[in-house]
């Protein structure tokens, strides 16, 4: 490929004829690429936090229910298998973490007030790895075992009920025969959550205690399984489906919590739009630079054509020049973005602005997250769109008239 050789030589040397212009352009591309990658890493980090929080707030990675449970969550939609059978098979399957729950709508009453809540009968030992609550107890203690006769409630709910740690409350729900089932519990722990909704709507009690109260010994209506990565739950879904067979519903987190799931999809689209917008801003500079460069070289381009170089080679030469610019900008931009993310690996404190973010479930420490997918995407967007943008000046150059170049004195 002699042609490629000479075209690259020419492209490279022409690039450095106007140092200043080239350096400015490379800086612009660098900044653009940096912005594409780093801002994406920030957004990814934020979504990551939200999803992790969301998942820790109960869904886990995969959930198993009776069919139609999500539409009608209650005591009438129990899993067909017994609690102890579930325990035996899930323990044997070797999941990272899993837990069985019984979850029903209920009313909680203090001496002062009452509220509608979702009651979770949980196995506290297993839940330690799954839900946030164990780690976010601010007063008292977490539940100790499935027989624990205490309950753990949110700070906000306690305030609403005008009750406090150590006091008794009454929980009321229905058993499978639609009879009222109620029981008094002592508040043994109070938790705080990032989302106020969690604090007001969740109440945790021992699983066995609730089974007894609701008159469903040895039955549960929800199993939660945790895999190793929320972005890769399909293998877990398959494994669980194989394990439990038909007749029950196996759902990944993004279907359990469709808000979280949608956010992930929207995010992917947003990242692409962001990259293209940054690129568009860049492309004006790029095309302008190339148009000027090509315009200044009317004569030598005409000369090369007069000597027998084909117009396509001229076109390629300009595209190569543009690619060299882009590659240099990409190289530095990638390195800078990587370095920035590494430098901020311990998180960025955004507590100043975090107050407004809490409603999204974001935490006040933001960890930018660099993914291969986003980096590749940014590079591909810049290279492909950049080549396309450079086609028009390159085409113009390849249309030059050689006679003008060699006869004008």
């Amino acid at each position, binding site marked *: 490929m002699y042609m490629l050789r000479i075209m690259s030589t*020419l492209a490279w040397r022409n690039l450095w004829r106007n140092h200043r212009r080239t350096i400015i352009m490379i800086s612009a591309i660098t900044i653009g690429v940096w912005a594409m990658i780093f801002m994406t890493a920030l957004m990814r980090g934020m979504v990551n936090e939200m999803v992790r929080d969301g998942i820790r707030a109960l869904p886990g990675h995969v959930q198993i229910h009776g069919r139609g449970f999500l539409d009608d969550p209650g005591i009438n939609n129990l899993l067909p298998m017994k609690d102890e059978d579930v325990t035996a098979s899930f323990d044997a399957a070797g999941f990272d973490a899993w837990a069985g729950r019984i979850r029903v709508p209920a009313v909680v009453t203090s001496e002062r007030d009452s509220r509608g809540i979702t009651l979770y009968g949980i196995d506290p030992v297993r839940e330690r790895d799954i839900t946030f609550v164990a780690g976010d107890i601010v007063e008292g203690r977490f539940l100790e075992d499935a027989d624990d006769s205490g309950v753990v409630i949110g700070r906000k709910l306690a305030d609403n009920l005008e009750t406090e740690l150590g006091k008794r409350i009454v929980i009321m729900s229905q058993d499978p025969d639609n009879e009222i089932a109620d029981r008094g519990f002592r508040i043994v722990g109070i938790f705080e959550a990032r989302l106020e909704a969690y604090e007001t709507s969740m109440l945790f009690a021992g699983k066995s205690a609730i089974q007894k109260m609701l008159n469903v010994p040895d039955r549960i209506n929800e199993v939660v399984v945790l895999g190793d990565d929320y972005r890769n739950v399909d293998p877990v879904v398959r494994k669980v489906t194989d394990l439990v067979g038909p007749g029950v519903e196996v759902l990944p987190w993004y279907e359990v919590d469709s808000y979280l799931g949608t956010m992930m999809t929207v995010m992917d689209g947003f990242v692409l739009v962001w990259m293209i917008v940054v690129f568009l801003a860049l492309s004006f500079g790029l095309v302008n630079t190339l148009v000027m460069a090509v315009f200044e070289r009317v004569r030598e381009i005409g000369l090369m054509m007069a000597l027998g170089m084909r117009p396509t080679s001229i076109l390629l030469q300009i595209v190569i020049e543009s690619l060299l610019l882009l590659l240099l900008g990409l190289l530095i931009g990638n390195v800078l973005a990587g370095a920035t993310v590494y430098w901020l690996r311990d998180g960025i404190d955004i507590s100043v602005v975090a107050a407004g973010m809490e409603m999204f479930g974001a935490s006040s420490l933001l960890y930018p997250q660099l993914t291969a997918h986003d980096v590749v995407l940014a590079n591909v967007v810049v290279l492909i769109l950049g080549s396309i943008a450079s086609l028009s000046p390159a085409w113009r150059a390849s249309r030059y008239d050689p006679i003008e170049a060699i*006869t004008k004195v």
Partner: protein
Amino acid sequence: MTAVTCIELCKTYRQGDQEIKALDHASIDIGEGGFVCLSAPSGGGKTTLLNAIGGLDIPDSGEVWIAGKRIDNLGKGELANLRLHKIGYVFQAYNLVPVLSARENVEFVMQVQGVPAGQRAEKSMAILKEVGLQGLEDRRPAEMSGGQQQRVAVARAIVSRPALVLADEPTANLDSKTSDALMELFVQLNKTHGTTFVIATHDQRVMGYAKRLIKMLDGRIVDDIDQQAA
């Protein structure tokens, strides 16, 4: 077979409401191994004729034949090929690629032709020595005098030994000594390789070297002198 045949070439330029006949029914015939000078005052149509012969410009009417092949009806790609492989050029005004060194400029045509690097280097070094530019091989055009640049252009035109060399005022920027050296080189190549030369000039010294002198005026051929007989 003739190297160059032009039949009734016409080319008219329009400037405002004025018509300029750059070529006016010009016909010439140059045999293989010819050494021809085209002489005319400035604006006489020399460059226009050379461009037509070299496949750079298409005349309004008439025919151009190079080495037995009609070229005025070829497509752009075929013309580019013809220029690349069959003809060596020294242009009147602008000859060198600024970002390439003397040697790279000389090698440019060979490189586009696909001549291997070793062969290119050997030939370009030899030819630069022949035109008296030894030691200046790595200079860019901007670091050379007008005469030196002109010699680089000549070196490029003859380095791949084309059958036909078209030179448009090749000595315009040269002193008399270098002019003579250059013309002797042309004569030498003409003798040993049978290369056909068509040289546009209004330099009397150059005309003295020609075997044949064609005079033009206002786009017409006005005189055709065989100088060998003399």
